């Protein structure tokens, strides 16, 4: 269904408004709520000079609106603060770490969709029978497992006890030096294939399997449950009954017609689970020492590196709303009835 330019413009515009709102909320959280913001920004155990410097940098002596204006100006100019832990600008740190997280999330989501949706369809077709009930139980458990705990368990069993897979990290540094691997896009799986570096590719694959599997459990369970519920609902609809009577083949009815009707809400719910997956990624990165935004955030939290924490929060919020916007647009493409 053709998307009108009008719709895209409207959507992107509201996106910008939302991002603006995010930034404002963050401002309120970081400057307005705390009684003495300079303590948060100066790092733990600050000296009086550091506090004074922080006060100046935050322009705390100025009127609140001036503070807001200067804050926005800083953000716009890319001046998001210095992480006092790494001593480098926060934005640089984030740019470095982002691709690693994206790679992890993409792989996890792919696993979730590739396994979850067919599982849901299968359960819907075998509704009421034992297979359906088994799948139901598995997905409920899967949706209830705390990601960080699961990560610990998996790492313990496969990484430490059984030693079949690496317990952490993203790539074997020695191998990188040996084979002269150079990251191009930041997505190591892609980069290694581009360079024909199969050794690194396999190595990264080994490293990414455990964390991405753990991360995929929640969205996989959710998409299986949603797919099943929606397929069952759709298969009971009148238009499926009539398609059946008119003579459309069973296979087409399930995999072309019903699936398309069910997929739109499933896509929407995936967008929702995406939010949980992002947070889950943080915890998984922390435990598997995966060098992404999550690890960066966790380390910043543990060392009270406030500027870094806030910068990550803003970036993730922007990223999240952008993904939601894309999901909405995808939804509109699939369902021609969506009002544009």
């Amino acid at each position: 269904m053709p998307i009108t330019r009008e719709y895209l413009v409207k959507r992107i515009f509201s996106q910008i408004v939302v991002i603006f709102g995010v930034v404002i909320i963050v401002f309120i959280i970081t400057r307005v709520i705390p009684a003495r913001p300079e303590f948060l920004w100066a790092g733990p155990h600050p000296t009086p000079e550091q506090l004074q410097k922080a006060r100046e940098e935050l322009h705390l002596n100025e009127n609140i609106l001036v503070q807001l204006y200067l804050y926005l100006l800083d953000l716009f100019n890319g001046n998001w603060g210095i992480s006092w832990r790494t001593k480098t600008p926060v934005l640089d740190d984030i740019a470095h770490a982002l691709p690693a997280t994206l790679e992890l999330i993409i792989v996890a989501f792919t696993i979730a969709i590739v396994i979850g949706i067919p599982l849901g369809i299968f359960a819907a077709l075998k509704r009421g029978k034992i297979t359906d009930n088994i799948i139901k139980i598995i997905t409920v458990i899967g949706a209830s497992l705390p990601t960080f705990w699961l990560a610990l368990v998996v790492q313990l069993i496969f990484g430490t006890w059984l030693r079949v897979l690496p317990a952490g990290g993203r790539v074997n540094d020695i191998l990188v030096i040996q084979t002269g691997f150079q990251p191009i896009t930041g997505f190591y799986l892609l980069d290694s294939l581009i360079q024909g570096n199969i050794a690194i590719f396999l190595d990264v694959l080994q490293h990414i399997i455990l964390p991405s599997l753990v991360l995929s459990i929640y969205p996989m369970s959710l998409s299986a449950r949603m797919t099943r519920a929606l397929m069952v609902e759709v298969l009971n609809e009148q238009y499926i009954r009539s398609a059946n009577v008119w003579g459309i083949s069973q296979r087409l009815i399930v995999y072309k017609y019903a699936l398309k009707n069910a997929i739109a809400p499933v896509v929407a719910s995936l967008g929702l689970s995406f939010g949980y997956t992002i947070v889950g990624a943080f915890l998984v990165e922390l435990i598997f020492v995966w060098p992404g935004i999550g690890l960066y955030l966790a380390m910043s939290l543990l060392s009270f590196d406030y500027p870094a924490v806030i910068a990550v929060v803003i970036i993730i919020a922007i990223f999240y709303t952008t993904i939601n916007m894309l999901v909405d647009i995808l939804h509109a493409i699939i369902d021609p009835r969506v009002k544009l």
Partner: protein
Amino acid sequence: MSEISEILKLVKKDIISFIGLIIVVGFITLGIIAPYILTRPNDAWGNTYDVTKAYLPPSLSHPFGTDEYGRDMFNRVLLGTRFSLIIATGVVGVALLIGILIGLIAGYAGGRIATLLMRITDMFFAFPPLLLAIALAATLGRGLINVIIALAIAWWPWYARLVFIQVNSIKTLPFIDGAKVIGLSNTRIMFKYILPNSLTPVTVQASLDMGSAVLEAAALSFLGIGVPPPIPEWGLLISQGWQSINRAWWISIFPGLALVIIVIGFNLLSDAIREIMDPKLKRLLIIKGI
């Protein structure tokens, strides 16, 4: 009220939902009586430090083993139930309060006020679920109350939206017009007439959110921005066990299992209630045995 008893009746019929119900009821009960049934209260509250008993694996005297301070993990996990319950009710309670109020006012007032309030609500939705709580918790610092505040502030928009939709559809019903014609004040109409009728989806959602609240609080504690030690909150216990996980796996595993069971319970219950409340499905219910 009769709806609730009907729901309970139907839940009892299906074994899986019944298990969910039992878990939830068990959780609430344990949470209330936990402090009174501890066998080693000092261990649970974190008042002891006995290095000779550190890192003992699970045994009869210590079913869940001991941690690095020699404290009995079983007691700690048990007491943790109490704190999880406090957090869950606190978060959901406060979020409900704020959310219902805002949703009610926005829904009833309509117009500019509604747009403004709903826009603010939408801005909160820009954040992935836990992220806002992380930012808030990082700002407020560790503490039981802070965790509740942080999660509640991150959570109220969901309820506000739910209530908003309900109020919107109720306020156009004829009996509201009737109330206005009689001359009842707006506040009276809002609270006495509209509010009671718009509570159903929200209360169902809220009671099921308690499981998620426990989970998210645990995540915050795991990251070090939740409750402070020595409170035996499950997330905190898991993170404490993480340091020594290679030689004492039990410290992290058992609190995690408790979490898993609680969340499973709430999920099962929520599935059951949702299926029951779906009127379409009700019509297709087949008598068992056919």
